[in-house]
């Protein structure tokens, strides 16, 4: 058995060498790629919305992706708008290099860093992953956290890494570390562990825990376990979150103390009929010493086998001290033929304690859209609501989109 493992490792190592050689060859321009999808894909969306009593607002979003070679891809998403003052930002601008067989990856540019127990953060920086054929992974990353609208903070950067080991096909166990500095001072330093296991096809488990080193204690922990049998899926989940530890320790609001909240609950999904799904979820909560609960039930009915048309209904109740409310939501979407499509969404939220903000907050949106085979997509909608801020509000929305390049 041991010999077999060694022989397999030798074969994999040979593949690694061949893979690296082919990457070098490909980077020299000699690669031959039988890709059929359009390598360059672009999409533009323009959304204009009347601003109720204010000025109209508009957003233009441009995104693109190029995978001309399988070992390199580039991706970008920029937007500009009048909301109502002129503004804009770069959401993604990243290059991704990949050893053809997956032994190494390099990502550089602006992207969302989220790995292991590291809290998701968008950075301007880089990330390198190295993988061994036997399932070990080493990852390191660093960069400057993004400040919206091209702002900047001095001496603000983060760096860290993660090591992980896959246990055959059963799962993965990982450990991570991240340190962030703000104004030259350590603003957060976390170590974390993460795990995902699927020992049998009908059961899986995943979760992570992050431990705050600067002010010792658990910053965030989440776990989820699910069992799936025939048309039923039952999931149990638990979480602990310390908001005070999620702030940089250089923030004044981090000195208020540690008041974590815990949640424990479950979700049941029943595939009741080929087109009908029923879901129910409930959780008990301890929000800084105040006990509460929340839950919802949801029904989704497809109007055809492909799911082009849908009807849905959701009922919700949240009963946490200071946040007691009930709500209902209904959706309907149906194709009308000729590329046209109609959809309707309505919601009503009823707070237990209105405090002069209105006894109920209704909201509704009716939309009509049309899509052409050439890549054009047009949609128009009417949105009306009553909110704590405005007694009545009505808006019209128009979207025009164009996509170039097919997958």
């Amino acid at each position: 058995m041991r010999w077999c493992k060694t022989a397999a490792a030798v074969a994999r190592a040979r593949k690694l060498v061949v893979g690296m050689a082919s990457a070098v060859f490909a980077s020299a321009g000699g690669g031959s790629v039988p890709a059929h999808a359009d390598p360059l894909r672009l999409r533009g969306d323009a959304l204009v919305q009347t601003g109720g009593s204010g000025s109209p607002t508009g957003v233009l979003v441009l995104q693109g992706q190029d995978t001309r070679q399988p070992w390199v891809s580039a991706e970008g998403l920029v937007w500009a708008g009048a909301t109502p003052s002129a503004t804009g930002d770069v959401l993604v601008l990243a290059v991704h290099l990949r050893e053809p067989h997956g032994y190494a990856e390099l990502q550089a540019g602006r992207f969302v860093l989220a790995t292991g127990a590291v809290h998701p953060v968008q950075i301007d920086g880089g990330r390198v992953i190295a993988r061994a054929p036997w399932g070990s992974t080493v990852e390191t990353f660093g960069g400057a956290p993004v400040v919206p609208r091209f702002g900047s903070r001095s001496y603000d950067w983060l760096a860290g890494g993660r090591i992980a080991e896959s246990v055959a096909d059963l799962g993965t166990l990982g450990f991570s570390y991240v340190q962030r500095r703000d104004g030259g001072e350590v603003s957060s330093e976390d170590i974390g562990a993460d795990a995902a296991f699927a020992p049998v096809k009908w059961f899986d488990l995943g979760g992570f825990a992050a431990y705050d080193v600067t002010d010792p204690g658990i910053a965030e922990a989440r776990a989820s376990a699910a069992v799936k049998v025939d048309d039923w899926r039952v999931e149990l989940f638990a979480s602990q979150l310390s908001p005070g530890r999620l702030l940089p320790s250089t923030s004044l609001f981090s000195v208020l103390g540690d008041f974590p909240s815990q949640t424990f609950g479950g979700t049941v999904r029943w595939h009741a009929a080929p087109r009908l799904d029923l879901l129910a979820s409930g959780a008990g909560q301890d929000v800084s010493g105040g006990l509460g609960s929340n839950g919802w039930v949801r029904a989704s009915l497809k109007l055809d086998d492909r799911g082009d048309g849908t009807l849905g209904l959701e009922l919700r109740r949240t009963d946490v001290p200071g946040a007691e409310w009930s709500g209902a939501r209904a959706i309907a979407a149906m194709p009308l033929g000729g590329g046209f499509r109609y959809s309707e969404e309505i919601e009503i939220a009823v707070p237990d304690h209105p405090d002069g903000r209105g006894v109920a907050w209704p909201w509704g949106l009716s939309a009509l859209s049309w899509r052409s085979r050439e890549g054009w997509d047009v949609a128009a909608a009417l949105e009306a609501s009553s909110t704590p801020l405005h007694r009545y509000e009505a808006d019209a929305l128009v979207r025009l989109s164009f996509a170039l390049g097919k997958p």
Partner: protein
Amino acid sequence: MSRRPVGLTLLMVLAVTLAACASVLGIRRQPASHPFEHRAHVMRGVGCLECHKGIEITGDTGPLHLPSDADCVRCHQQPHDSRPCQTCHGETYVRDAAELARARLRFTHSRHMIAAQGDCVRCHATVTESRPDTVMPKMATCFGCHEHRDQWTLRDCNGCHVDLAAEGSMPEDHLVHEGDWLREHGSRAASERDLCASCHTERQCASCHGEGTVAALPWKLALGDDVRLAGLHRAGFGARHSLEARADPGICTTCHTESSCLDCHSRRGVAPGSTSASPHPPGWLTPSGGDHGSQARVDPVSCAGCHGGAGEQLCVGCHRVGGPGGNPHGPGFNSRKDEHHDLPCRLCHGAGP
């Protein structure tokens, strides 16, 4: 009046209702849908290659080798309709799926025909079923022969998939996103973020987790297309967001940083310095303190959203050492920081000697 007609009428209404429900729920198929009659051909001994001519020697490019009308009339010499056969026999979405599979997968029939020794049914098992959705094999069928453990470990899907992220297809038998996936995905993705990246682009992650998020909600940009119940900021979220934030303190920081609140509140005139409205409920700040202290301890991130950075001076004004606001530290507060030199301690405790 006899009770029999009433009973019969009720029975008929019940039967019609049940039949309608069966159609709506998908238990009974709509008569309009008409999958191709593969089984009938197989039962009559028609070989696959008689209609799909030349498929046994194809590579991973080129036409689909679907039969033309000329192929059909070789046997069906008196067609019952003048329209093309594919108008009724076979469903458009199945042909579309076959075209997409041709575009998205690196797959050659020629190599597989040798391995399967010409037995098409070994992969296309549903061809013998009476009314299958499609005869295209599912990925589990591929795994029946190709174990792909190494590729799974190395996240190397490119051997078969041209570009999974662009493909955008939902897996049917592995990594299925079920239940309350929006809440669940964080726990699941922690250990396998790079596996997620096999299908999901950076843009998809950044549309929620990005700091410079587009000033329009993702679902609003997909207006009319993307209608579903699940979604964190869907529908009248603007009205109920303060209740949702209060019910799960800190959850907003999963995607937003402290500055995100101020960005939106400023646009809507609900921000420090604004005279139009205050987001705080009655009793928030009173001469004896009010609710703001206890609420700030539960979710300090929300406070930092508008009052962070330079706005911290608002708190310092009252809560500095010797100030009228008193000690803001919670029970059991302990810090390793130097109160006279490190931030944020020095804001209230003052610079030391």
